[in-house]
């Protein structure tokens, strides 16, 4: 455990000293705060506007950071040859990959916490303490689960391909994963072998739509981050889904990394 924690701590420290990540965070914070101005322009919908734009900012930038860090993580270790110093030490290759993943997740937790805090403060500046409710916390938790999968997918691709291709693949998985209900509807309309193929792809790819349920019908009720949002059981099983999917993808990344020659 100490070895995994050491790799995770070092990965977090690397991210904390990375200027590009700070730039992305500042962009996100700028977007969230700018929602305050947009709120002023809307009539009686200022709180809704700030919440929507703010959560969109957290979603967009957390996914960008997850893909950026995820695809560079293992590649940088190989390109900069730092892995030559680490792997001859008594650490298993899977421990190294898992430690890197934990480090990125710690970075994303910190980033989402900072963005969420700024969003909450922005909402409070507009509408007082009432403006911050449990739905906001649940929405942020779901976005964290979303990037848990995105990071694992990005790391999986980076275990065998370049950062550019890994980034493209991970972005593709994110876009399709977020549109799973639409893709399933398309598959149903298409029918035949093409429809079956598309349905198969939907089963294999992560259903990231689960993590942005606002506006969707869950049973008889349409949930909204501005009103009645998801309950504890929804949070529970989507969290289990995110952890389970990430575990499978990470296990594949570990298997590939385990067999690699570090020339």
């Amino acid at each position, binding site marked *: 455990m*100490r*070895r995994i*924690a*050491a*790799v995770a*701590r*070092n990965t977090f*420290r*690397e991210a904390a*000293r990375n200027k590009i990540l700070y730039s992305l965070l500042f962009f996100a914070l700028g977007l969230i705060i700018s929602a305050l101005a947009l709120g002023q322009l809307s009539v009686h919908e200022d709180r809704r506007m700030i919440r929507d734009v703010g959560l969109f900012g957290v979603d967009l930038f957390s996914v960008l950071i997850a893909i950026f860090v995820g695809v560079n993580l293992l590649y940088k270790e190989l390109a*900069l*040859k*730092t*892995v*030559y*110093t*680490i*792997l*001859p*030490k*008594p*650490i*298993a290759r899977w421990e190294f990959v898992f430690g890197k993943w934990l480090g990125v997740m710690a970075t994303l937790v910190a980033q989402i916490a900072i963005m969420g805090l700024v969003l909450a403060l922005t909402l409070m500046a507009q509408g007082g303490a009432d403006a911050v409710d449990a739905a906001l916390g649940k929405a942020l938790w779901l976005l964290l689960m979303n990037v848990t999968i995105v990071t694992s997918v990005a790391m999986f691709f980076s275990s065998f391909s370049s950062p550019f291709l890994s980034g493209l693949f991970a972005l593709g998985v994110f876009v399709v994963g977020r549109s799973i209900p639409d893709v399933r509807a398309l598959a149903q309309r298409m029918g035949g072998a093409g429809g079956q193929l598309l349905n198969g792809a939907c089963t294999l790819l992560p259903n990231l739509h689960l993590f942005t349920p606002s506006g969707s019908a869950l049973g008889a009720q349409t949930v909204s981050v501005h009103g009645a949002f998801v309950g504890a059981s929804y949070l529970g099983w989507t969290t289990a889904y995110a952890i389970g999917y990430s575990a499978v993808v990470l296990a594949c990344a570990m298997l590939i990394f385990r*067999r690699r*020659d*570090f*020339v």
Partner: protein
Amino acid sequence: MTDGESGGAVSGASEPEVVLRADDLAKTFHLGFFRKRVDAVRGVSFSVHRGEIFGFLGPNGAGKTTTLKMLMGLIFPSRGRAQILGRPVPDRQAKRRIGYLPETPYFYEYLTPEEFLDFAGALCDLPAAERRKRADALLARVGLEHARGRPLRKFSKGMLQRIGIAQALMGDPEVIVLDEPMTGLDPLGRKDIRDLILELGRAGKTVMFSTHILPDVEMTCDRVAIVAGGRLRSVGTLASLLSPRVLSTEVVLRPSATPPPLPAGGRRLPSDGALAVELPAGADVDGYLRAALDTGAAVVSVTPRRESLEDVFVREAAAPEGPAS
């Protein structure tokens, strides 16, 4: 091959204990679109004994780094096997007892030496207090106490090499493997590393290092393996590799008006003011000196030239490929 390679991790009183063994190690890469076959290492067998300083000598591209990476578990051999302290590579118990410095080491440049050594210590499962204690001691040992708070990106090549050795020693290993530790260093940097290797040898550690710098090997190693073209060409002590036979004798005289006649095969060497001649092997050196003294010349020096490590290295590296060693 000069040496007899002994077997077994622990041997009797007469045979030294083998701490590192390569058995017919081979690595073939398939490169490029057409999967071109490149045999980087073609069946290398040798062993390193406890407490010795072992030089792994070879020209660039000989297969030294690939062999060391196979020993460290960074590359999987296409054939053969390696053992460290009696355990197959890359066994974790064996890795606990090894320290490794890669060729041209690259470290996390955003870390300070203290942070980096702490990280290396944590990977060796050391508790925090022990890590701090060892990091302090090692920073002092490699002369980097003054730079303990400076990021590694601001380190010179020599300083990086020293912190690289320090990280290899964090786990207090019995066996230390260094890949080209002196390459790219200035003479003072090379001397520092050489002294450190000798100090480790005196402390009872087993050190194996690869290099193509011959004087470093001559000054530090108990035994040497010469590798070229992916094959092991020779292995043994320096004394066993170098022939004691005199190849030629260099005589320097303060000449008289009439210098003594040169024996057959002898030749004059360029010199400033003095008379320098090289007499071939088997020449009557005593006779030549007597003749010189008779003419009134004074003898300044007489130097027999025996086979050097460079002669052996050039001969082995240039030799046509034999069967796999």
